[in-house]
C-alpha cells in the first residue's frame, strides 16, 4: 500500500516591535537578566495590560499577506496555567475570535501551485525564560534551582496555524521558507530560527493514498531549523508507516526534540488534554480594527514572494527561482543585466558566499563584473564580489584591461614556452628562481602582451614545481 503524509504546522514568530505586547518595556533578548521589566510584565498585584497598537497593525498586515479575513471584532482571552515562566498564572492569547482567520498561501512548485490553508493567525504574549542552575548546563534534570528571566515575558508573538494541507517533508520545508520570506519582507519580524524569533511545531499523520480519513497525529516540538524539521518529518512519516504496516496503531503523543542536540532521540510524552479554562480577558476591551487601518495596511503590501517565484520561474527553472526569492536576492537578480542563468548562478553561489547585502549593490556594475567573469581570475572575481556592496564600487579595475586571464586559454601557451626552453626549466628547478621573469616575458611575447601576468605567474609556478 502506498501512504500519504498529512502535515500541518504551527508557527510562532516574534514581532520586532520596540516594546512588549502589553507594557512599554523594551523588547531586548541579549540584555542582562530582568533588566527589561516593570510591574505589568512581572505581574505585580494590580497591574493591567495595555495592548501594543503596532503589534496589532502588524498582525493585520501578516493576515492580509496570507489572504486572511481580518476580524471586525477580535477578543483577547486568558489561557490559565501555572508555571514559573508564566507570571500572571495566565497567558493573554486569542482563542475563538482571533484577529485573522481563513487565509491561504499559494505556493508555486515544480508541479504547479499548491494552496496551503491558513486556519488562523493570532496575537499573544511570550513567556519568561526559565534558567536551570546547578545541574548540567541549562538542563532541568539535576538542577538545584531555577531562575526566571522576565526580559522576554510579554514580548509580542504571532501564532500562525496551517490546515493539514502539506503532503511531504520537502513541501513543508519549502512552505516554511516561503512563509519566512513573506514575513521578513513585511518588516514585522526577523523570523530567524537560530535566534528563536521563529519557532515551528509540526503535526504529522499518514493515511492510505487516496483515502480522505484523518488518522492519529503526533506533534513535534523544538525543531531548530527548516532542514532539521524536514528530516524529522520524513523520519516520523516512515515510522508511522512502519507502525501501520506492522499492524500497529500510532499513538497520539508529542515528540520533544532537544534543541541543543539534533541527533538525540526526541522525548515522547502522552498528550494530556490540559484544560486552560479560556475566558475573555476582562482587563481588555475587544479589538475593533478600523476599516481605514485595514485598507491602509493592505495598500502597503508589495508583490508577494510567491508571485515573484512564479514570474521568475518563467525565465529560469523553478528551483533557482525559488532560491533567489527565498534568499532575498531576486530583486537584485531582476536589476542586474546580462545572461539570466549566469546572473542567477553567480548570485546564488559566489555572490551569496561573499555575504554582501543585495540592497547595497549597484546592479549595472555587478552586471559588468558577471559578464566578464570568464576573463577574471577566480580570486580576483571573489575580491570584486566582496567589494561590490561598497559605495562607489566600479567593476572596471577588476576587468583585467582586456587581458586574457582564462587559464584554459593560457595553459597551452605556457606549456609551449616550457617545452621550447628545456635548459632554463632545468636551471629554474635547480634553484635559479630568477628565471621566472624570463618565462613570463616569453609568454607575454607569444600573446602580444594580452596575457594576465598574475595568471601567467601562477600557471608557471604550478608547471615548474
Amino acid at each position, binding site marked *: 500500500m502506498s501512504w500519504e503524509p498529512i502535515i500541518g504546522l504551527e508557527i510562532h514568530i516574534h514581532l520586532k516591535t520596540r516594546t512588549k505586547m502589553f507594557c512599554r518595556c523594551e523588547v531586548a533578548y541579549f540584555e542582562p537578566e530582568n533588566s527589561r521589566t516593570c510591574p505589568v510584565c512581572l505581574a*505585580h498585584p494590580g*497591574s*493591567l495590560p495595555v495592548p501594543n497598537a503596532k503589534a496589532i497593525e502588524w498582525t493585520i498586515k501578516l493576515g492580509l499577506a496570507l489572504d486572511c479575513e481580518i476580524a471586525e471584532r477580535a477578543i483577547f482571552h*486568558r489561557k490559565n496555567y501555572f508555571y514559573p515562566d508564566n507570571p500572571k498564572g495566565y497567558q493573554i492569547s486569542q482563542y475563538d475570535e482571533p484577529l485573522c482567520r481563513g487565509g491561504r498561501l499559494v505556493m508555486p512548485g515544480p508541479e504547479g501551485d499548491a494552496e496551503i490553508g491558513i486556519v488562523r493567525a493570532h496575537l499573544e504574549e511570550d513567556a519568561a525564560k526559565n534558567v536551570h542552575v546547578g545541574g548540567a548546563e541549562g538542563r532541568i534534570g539535576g538542577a538545584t534551582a531555577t531562575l526566571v528571566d522576565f526580559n522576554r515575558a510579554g514580548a509580542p508573538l504571532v501564532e500562525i496555524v496551517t490546515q493539514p494541507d502539506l503532503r511531504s517533508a520537502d513541501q513543508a520545508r519549502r512552505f516554511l521558507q516561503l512563509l519566512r520570506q513573506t514575513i521578513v519582507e513585511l518588516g514585522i519580524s526577523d523570523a530567524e530560527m537560530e535566534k528563536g524569533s521563529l519557532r515551528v511545531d509540526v503535526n504529522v499523520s499518514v493515511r492510505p493514498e487516496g483515502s480522505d480519513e484523518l488518522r492519529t497525529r503526533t506533534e513535534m516540538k523544538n525543531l531548530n531549523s527548516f532542514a532539521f524539521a524536514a528530516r524529522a518529518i520524513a523520519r516520523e512519516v516512515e515510522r508511522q508507516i512502519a507502525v501501520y504496516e506492522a499492524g500497529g496503531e500510532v499513538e497520539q503523543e508529542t515528540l520533544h526534540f532537544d534543541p541543543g542536540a539534533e541527533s538525540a532521540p526526541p522525548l515522547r510524552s502522552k498528550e494530556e488534554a490540559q484544560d486552560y*479554562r479560556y*475566558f475573555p480577558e*476582562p*482587563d481588555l476591551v475587544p479589538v475593533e480594527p478600523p476599516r481605514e487601518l485595514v485598507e491602509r495596511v493592505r495598500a502597503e503590501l508589495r508583490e508577494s514572494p510567491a508571485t515573484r517565484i512564479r514570474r521568475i520561474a518563467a525565465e529560469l527553472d523553478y528551483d533557482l527561482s525559488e532560491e533567489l526569492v527565498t534568499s532575498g536576492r531576486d530583486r537584485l537578480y531582476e536589476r542586474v543585466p546580462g545572461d539570466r542563468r549566469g546572473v542567477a548562478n553567480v548570485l546564488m553561489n559566489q555572490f551569496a558566499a561573499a555575504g554582501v547585502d543585495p540592497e547595497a549593490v549597484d546592479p549595472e556594475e555587478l552586471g559588468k563584473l558577471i559578464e566578464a567573469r570568464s576573463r577574471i581570475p577566480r580570486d580576483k572575481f571573489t575580491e570584486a564580489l566582496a567589494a561590490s556592496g561598497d559605495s562607489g564600487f566600479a567593476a572596471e579595475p577588476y576587468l583585467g584591461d582586456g587581458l586574457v586571464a582564462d587559464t584554459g586559454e593560457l595553459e597551452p601557451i605556457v606549456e609551449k614556452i616550457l617545452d621550447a626552453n628545456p635548459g632554463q626549466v632545468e636551471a629554474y628547478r635547480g634553484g635559479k628562481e630568477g628565471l621566472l621573469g624570463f618565462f613570463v616575458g616569453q609568454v607575454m611575447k607569444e600573446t602580444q602582451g594580452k596575457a594576465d601576468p598574475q595568471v601567467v605567474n601562477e600557471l608557471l609556478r604550478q608547471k615548474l614545481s
Partner: protein
Amino acid sequence: MKLETLRLTAEEGMGLLERGEVSAAELHGAYLEAISERDDELHAYLRTVDEADGPSIPIAFKDLISTRGVETTAGSKILAGYVPVYDATVATRCRETGLTLLGKTNMDEFAMGSSTENSAYGPTRNPWDPDRVPGGSSGGSAAAVAAGLAPWALGSDTGGSVKQPASLCGIVGLRPTYGSVSRYGIVAFASSLDQIGPMAKTVRDCALLYRIVAGRDPCDSTTVELPQPVEIPEREDLKGLRVGVPRELNDVEGIEPGVKEQVDRTIERCRELGAEVGETSLPRSVDYGLACYYLIAPSEASSNLARYDGVRYGLRVTGDDGVRAMYDRTRDAGFGDEPKRRIMLGTYALSAGYYEAYYGQAQKVRTVIAQEHAAAFESFDVLVSPTSPTVAFGLGEKTASPLAMYLSDVLTIPSNMAGLPGLSIPCGLSDGLPVGFQLIGPQFSENTLFQVGHALEHAIEFDFVPGRLA
C-alpha cells in the same frame, strides 16, 4: 487646641487649611491621634503613615490600593510584607491633588466578604456598636470615616463592597459607573466588576473625591473619559426628578422591618421634595443577579489570584520537592477560606464542559440584567431601594454560613452586574443603627445621584457621628 476630627468633613478640613487655621501636618497629626485613641477598639487600619506627604487634607486607602513604599496586603497573608514599587493611578491622582496618605484600611481578604471578618489580620468593628460588623469588604474605610479616623477614604466595590459598609456605618459611599475610575494598581478581585469608590461623611465630599479620581487612564484600557465634568451638588429640591421604586428590590425576603420603614420614609421625602415617584420592576435582575455574580466574580478571581504563586513576591513556603509542591504549600498557607472557596468555584465554572453552562450563561444573563435596567431608566431618572437588607449584624453572626453572608449583597449586586453607578446615603436609624438608602442611576449619571443624595441629605439631617462617640 485639640482638633476634633469626629465631625470634620473633608470640605471643612480643606477650609481650615485654606484659611491657614491649621497646617496639613497638624491635620494629619490630629487624625493619627484620633486613630491612636479609637482604633485599638475598631481596628479600621492595618497600618498608618506617620508623616503628611502633601499640602492638603489626609485620606485613607483600602489596603488593595497599591502605594509605592507602603505595604499593601489586600487583607491577605499571602501578601504579607509586599511593598509595591508603584502607585495605583488613584493614589497618584490623590497625591497630585496634595492629599496625604493617612494609612491603609482593613478589608475582607481580596475584597471577598461583606463584614471585614475575612481579613487575615482580624475583623474591624462597627463604630456604632463594636459588637457588630462594619460591613465589607471596605469595612475598614467605612469605619475609619464614621469614627472620625479619616475625613474620607477610598474603598472598592465589586458586589457592593463600598455601598454596603457605607450603609452599615452611616456614611456616604459611591460605587461609580464601571470604567469611570482606573483600576490600575488595584489588587484585582473580579476585573469586570471592580471599581474604586469614594466614601465620605457627606455627598459633597463624595463628589469632590470622585472628581479627583475619575476619568480615563491610559494604563487601564477599560476606562473612558467622563461625558461631563463632575458637579459638586448644591440644589436642595428634587423638582422634575422621576424616582422609580423597583418592587423586587424593596420587597425581597429578608429586608428588616426597621430598614423598610426608614427607606419608605425616605421615598416619601423624595415626593415632598418635588419628585414624581412610581413603581417599577426588575424581576430577572433580582432573581438571577446574585447567582450570576457568584459565577462571574469567582471565575475571574480564580484567574486573578493565580499570580500569588510564591515565585516573585509575597509569601513563599519553600521545600525541596519542586515547584508544584511549593505552589500548593504557599497557596494553602497564604489564602484564607473565602478566597479558597471562590478559587474552587471559579475554577470549576470555567472548566471545559461547564464553561457554557456557567460562565457563558451568566454573561448572557448579565446582558439581560443590563437591558432590564436600561428599560427602567426610560421612565425613571433614579431607582431606589435599601442598600442592605439589614442593619449592621453581630460579629460572628454570619461567618458560619457563606450563603447568609452572600445575601447581604442581594440589593447591591444587580446594578453592579449592569455596570451602573450607585450611591448609598444614610437615611435614619433602626434600633440605633444606621440604615442606608441606595440610589441607582444610568451609566455616568453620578451628577444626578449626587444631586439627589445631597437634597435628601439636607432633608433627612442624619447625624453621621455614632451616638456612643458623640
